[in-house]
């Protein structure tokens, strides 16, 4: 087990290094010169050139990359061009906001999606099944950016119940969480239903029923437990992507998380911010995947981890 985790962590390294290379190349080969964007409007060509040299952008690319990696290995993510702040200090508070939003959305998605899917599978072809399946296919079709604006229109503008933008109190969290979790609720409900239907047809479920166990026990302990693996997979993937910053949701509700920050950094060509952010995402995503794989072992004793 420990060996397995260690192996997985070591295997993350090549992927992460590749991510830094790809991010570095894409950013530096892209048109758009950060020095030019950063320099004041009345700067002369010489000023811009001096700034370029100060930022280290005038050096050959391989040298720039080696310098970047050298700093990175010593735990230094560099300094934002725009604010001069250390990238780590820029990223962490924003990542904390994103983490809060993603966690709330995952919790809501599981609380809504799992029961909906179980009920749909247990009472297959009933009205409850139809309602939850029609609901989830519609949920998968609604664009988050529109849903967010609509929720804001109804609950902030018209009813005045909830704040429309910003972060701070629990009230600020409600609308962004609803917006972000809709897709996940739908996916989890569908996955749960499909997985439960498969498991409910298995012999051991029939045996459990034949033993005279209460239906509730059969469903929760025998069926659901065995149906959980694909559900955990989907939920984990979704969480990984939500950690990547809900760009749209954060933009609609002015949530001070990673997504909005990355868009702003892209527009400003703030390379250190972008490289740091992309690396943080990749790391968070890889760790989420590892956690999901470890959950398999908890759920299914047959899963063996080979180091």
């Amino acid at each position, binding site marked *: 087990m420990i060996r*397995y985790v260690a192996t*997985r962590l070591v*295997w993350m390294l*090549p*992927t992460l290094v*590749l*991510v830094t290379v790809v991010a570095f190349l*894409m*950013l530096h080969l892209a*048109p*758009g010169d950060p020095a030019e964007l950063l320099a004041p409007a009345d700067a002369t060509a010489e000023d811009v050139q001096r700034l370029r040299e100060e930022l280290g952008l005038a050096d050959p690319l391989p040298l720039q990359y080696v310098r970047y990696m050298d700093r990175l290995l010593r735990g230094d993510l560099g300094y934002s061009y725009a604010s001069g702040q250390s990238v780590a200090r820029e990223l962490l508070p924003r990542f904390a906001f994103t983490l809060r939003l993603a966690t709330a959305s995952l919790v809501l998605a599981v609380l809504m999606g799992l029961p909906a899917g179980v009920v749909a599978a247990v009472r297959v072809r009933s009205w409850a099944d139809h309602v939850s399946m029609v609901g989830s*296919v519609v949920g*998968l*079709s*609604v*664009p*988050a*950016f*529109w*849903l967010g*604006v*609509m929720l804001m*229109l109804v609950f902030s*503008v018209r009813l005045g119940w909830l704040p429309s933008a910003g972060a701070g109190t629990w009230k600020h969290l409600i609308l962004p969480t609803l917006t*972000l979790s809709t*897709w996940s609720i739908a*996916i989890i409900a569908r996955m749960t239903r*499909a997985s439960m239907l498969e498991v409910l047809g298995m012999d051991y479920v029939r045996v459990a029923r034949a033993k005279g166990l209460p239906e509730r026990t059969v469903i929760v302990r025998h069926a659901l437990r065995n149906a959980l693996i*694909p559900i955990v*997979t*989907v939920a*984990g993937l*979704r969480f*990984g*992507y939500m*950690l*990547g*910053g*809900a*760009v*749209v*949701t954060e*933009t*609609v509700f002015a949530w001070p998380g990673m*997504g909005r920050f*990355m*868009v702003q950094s*892209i527009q400003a*060509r703030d390379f250190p911010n972008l490289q740091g952010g*992309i690396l943080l*995402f990749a790391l968070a*995503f*890889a760790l989420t*995947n590892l956690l*999901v*794989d470890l959950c*398999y072992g908890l759920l299914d004793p047959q*899963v063996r*981890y*080979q180091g």
Partner: protein
Amino acid sequence: MSASRRVIRVTQPTPVGASGESPLRLGRAPVLRRLLGDAGGLIGLAIITLFVIVAVLAPFLTAETPRQQDLSRRLAPPSWRAPLGFDELGRNEGVLIIWGSRTSLTIAVASVLASVGAGVPLGLVGGFYRGVADDLIMRIVDVMLAFPGVLLALVVIAVLGSGLTSLILAVTVYSVPTYVRLVRAATLQIMPRQFIEAARATGAGSVRIMRLHVLPNILGPIIVQGSLSMGTVILTAGAMSFLGLGVQPPTVEWGAMISTGRLYVRNAPHAVVAPGLAIVLVVLGFNLLGDALRDTLDPTSRLVSASRKAGG
């Protein structure tokens, strides 16, 4: 990441035998018949047909052009003459919606064709040859998947600048990994089958086997994914345009309409509601069709299409 990979879908394609006959048999149309027997599939097909007709016939359906501005009717609410009202430049919302369907259809078709064109050969080669080629392809896919959500699309747009072509490319880059994984997994399941071995024994070359024996047997999942990703592409492209990184004016796009409309949402909600409903309807059409196709073509699959989400 190879120790235990996350299962995006588990498929057991129906073998077609060594004849290379298409498993879809669209000619004899059992697929179509079953599709029409399914309420969801029928509704989906109807929505998409309507969408395509509207997009193709846009110039004939509208009396005005989408560039026709008139500030005297700025943000005017819906009325009998203009059932969807007017936008902040006094343009007829109904006309904009109709013309916007062209943009969405173009992006969806171009991007899905491009992702299939890039993803299917890569997945096929990886699953067929295994070994170094496979490792290399999957490592690249892992890196692409390590850019979560729409970030990869955002970076591509940062590199290429905004506009219709770079939007299509961005959305394509974002969806290729899904096809590679899907096709590779399906190919891996086909490879140990006896008819592959039989084809080899008769002296068929690798390319011939892939084309005539593997590909026809994995077409089902590809078509299902294609239909479902038409919806995802429209959502992602809309999200990009909403963020101001997608198509630029004067091209009309539903996501961009929502983006400008939301500035006036307090007084003129109609300018936001209509384009949103248009997106929901079209994406719903593709999702319903995709679901119905999956039930027909790929009944044992345990699905879940949309592992990556548009927009978050």
